[in-house]
C-alpha cells in the first residue's frame, strides 16, 4: 500500500487518498480519545480488536465489580451482602432516559458488598455491587 495522503478539508473532515481512491474520514477528539467515522462505521481509539467491547458481557468466574453504564437512578436493589448469585441474575435495576436497565451478574458468585440504595443517583464507573467468585 502506498503512503496515504491525508488532507484536511474541513473542521474535523479529512480526505485520504490511498491506492488511487479517495475516502472521506471524520475525526473528533475528546479527553485524549479519538473518534473516527468512515463509510458508516465508527471507531474509537485506541483501535481494539472487535470482540473487546463485548468480552465483558460473557460469563466469567472471577470477582466482579458491577458499575452503572451511565448516570442513572437506582430503582431496585435485589441482593444483599452474602447472597449467592447465578450467572445472568439481575442484581440491580437502574433507570435512565425513561428506561429500566437491569444490571446482571456475569457469572456465579457471592455478593460481597452493595454500595448503593434505592433512589440513589449514581455515576458511571462507580462500583455499585461487588461479587466474589464462587
Amino acid at each position, binding site marked *: 500500500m502506498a503512503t496515504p495522503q491525508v488532507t484536511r478539508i474541513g473542521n*474535523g473532515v*479529512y480526505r*485520504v487518498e490511498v491506492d488511487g481512491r479517495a475516502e472521506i474520514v471524520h475525526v*473528533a477528539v475528546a479527553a485524549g480519545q479519538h473518534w473516527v467515522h468512515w463509510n*458508516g462505521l465508527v471507531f474509537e*481509539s485506541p483501535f481494539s480488536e472487535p470482540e473487546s467491547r*463485548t468480552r465483558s458481557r460473557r460469563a466469567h468466574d472471577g470477582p466482579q465489580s458491577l458499575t452503572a453504564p451511565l448516570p442513572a437512578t437506582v430503582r431496585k436493589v435485589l441482593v444483599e451482602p452474602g447472597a449467592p448469585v447465578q450467572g445472568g441474575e439481575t442484581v440491580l435495576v437502574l433507570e435512565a*432516559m425513561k428506561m429500566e436497565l437491569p444490571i446482571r451478574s456475569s457469572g456465579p458468585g457471592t455478593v460481597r458488598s452493595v454500595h448503593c440504595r434505592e433512589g440513589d443517583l449514581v455515576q458511571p464507573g462507580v462500583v455499585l455491587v461487588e461479587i466474589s467468585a464462587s
Partner: protein
Amino acid sequence: MIRRLLIANRGEIAIRIARACRELGVESVAVYSDADAHAAHVSATDRAVHIGPPPPRESYLNIDALLDAARRTEADAVHPGYGFLSENERFARACADAGLIFVGPPADAIARMGSKIRARAVATAAGVPVVPGSTPADQTDAGVLAAVNAIGVPALIKASAGGGGRGMRQVRHAGEALAAIQGARREAEAAFRDGTLYVERLIERPHHIEVQVFADTHGHVVHLFERECSVQRRHQKVIEESPSPNLTDTLRRRMTDAAVRAARAAGYVNAGTFEFLVDMGHGAADDAPFYFLEMNTRLQVEHPVTEQVTGVDMVRAQMLVASGAPLPWTQEQLAQRGHAIEARIYAEDPATGFIPQAGPLLLYREPKIPGVRIDSGVREGDRVSVHYDAMLAKVIATAETRPLAIARLREALLTFPVLGIRTNIGFLIRVLDSDAFRDGAVHTGYLDEEGAALASEPSPAPPEFLRAVLAATSEGPSTASEVLTRTWDPWGTVRGWNA
C-alpha cells in the same frame, strides 16, 4: 385562527411544529427545562420560556408550569407533540378550561380512545376485531396475575396510559408473571405517572401496521393510508415505512375502512392513528386477519413517512382543524405516491444491550441528499442528557419504489457521522441489509428473536489508512485541539457576539 402557539414538548418534534408555525404565520413559543437551556428547540421558536428543573415531572409533565408559561406569553393555543402530556386527558381539559386551543383531539375523545379498554369497546361496536385482553379492576399483583392466568400465556402486560414500549413486558411462562407485572408497573409510573396495567393475548410473529386518520369538527373523516412499523426492538419502533410491503389493495381497503369507521364511531377529531396487529401467517394475503391494538390520539413520531408519500403537511392540518376549519383535503385528493422509509437514530450502544448513551456530540453532520428528510433535535456541540428520550434524529428517505428508498436511506446512514457518543446507525444499516427486511418479512418480534444477532455483530477492523489519518491529526496538536474546541463548546464562540 391560532395567533401564538406554545409547544409543550422538546427535541425534534418541537422544532417540527415550530416550522409549521412559521409557514402558517403563527408565532411559536418553546418551553425548556434547566437541562435544555441551550437546546436546539429553544432557538427554533420566536420565544422561549423556562418551566423548571430537568426531571420531566417537574418540567415537561408539569401542567401548572406549562399553563403558566402560556399565560405569561399570551399564547392562545398549545401543541403537545408526542410523548409527555400529548395523550393526557387532564392536560387537554386544563388547556380548554384556560381558554387555550389544544392542538389535538378534545379531552373527551382522548378519554374515550386513549384508554385501551374504552377504545376496544368503541372498535368492537364499530365491527373492528380486537386482540383478547382486559384491564383488571383489581390492580394489585394478585389481581393482574389472575388476569394473566385468565388470558393464558404467551401474554403481554402493558401500561394502560402509555405507548412507545415503556411499561411493557412479555410473559411466556407463568413463573415470570409476577416480576413482569412489577417491572411494568414501575416503568409505567415513572413514564406516565399512572401505573394502571393492561393484559392481553400475545399474537405470535405479527406485523404492526397502522392507519393514519384525520377528522375535523365538520363531520369529515379521512385516512392517510398505512405505515408498516414491524421493525421494533422491545416494542420500540426502529424503522417505519409506507406503503407497507405486505398489504394487498384489498387488505389495505379493509383496514382503512375499519379505521375510518372506528374514528367516526368515536366522534374523533384531529390526527389519530389506529394501530393493528396483522397475522400474515394465516390464509391468503387479502383475507389476513387483523386486530385493533390501540389508538394513538396524537401526532406520531413516524408521521413524516405519511407526509412524504401523501405530500401533505399534517402539523399544519392539525392547527387548521383545531382552529375549527374544515380538513384541507378530501379522501379523493389523497393518494400514496412512491415509497418512504424512516429510520430512528438513537444514542444507544447496540453492542452492550442498547444501553442509552449520554454525552457530547463532538461531531454531528447530517447528510444533505435529495430525497432525504432529516427531522432532528440536536446540533453538533450539544450534550445528550440522561433526562430524556435518547432519539437524536429521524432520517426519512423517499423514492419511486421500496428498493430505491432503501438504497437512499442506506446511503444517508453511511454518510451521517455522529462522534462522541455511540449510536445505533451501524445497527440500522445492518437491518436494512438483512434479507428479512428486504423481503418485508420482519415481524414485531424479529429483532428480539431471529434477528437479535444483528445487534451484536462485531464491526469490522478499522482499515489501515485510518491510522494514517490519526497520525496526521495528532501530529499537529493545533489541528486536533481545533477539532476539539470548535466542536466541544459552541457557546464559547457565540459569546463574542455580546461583546
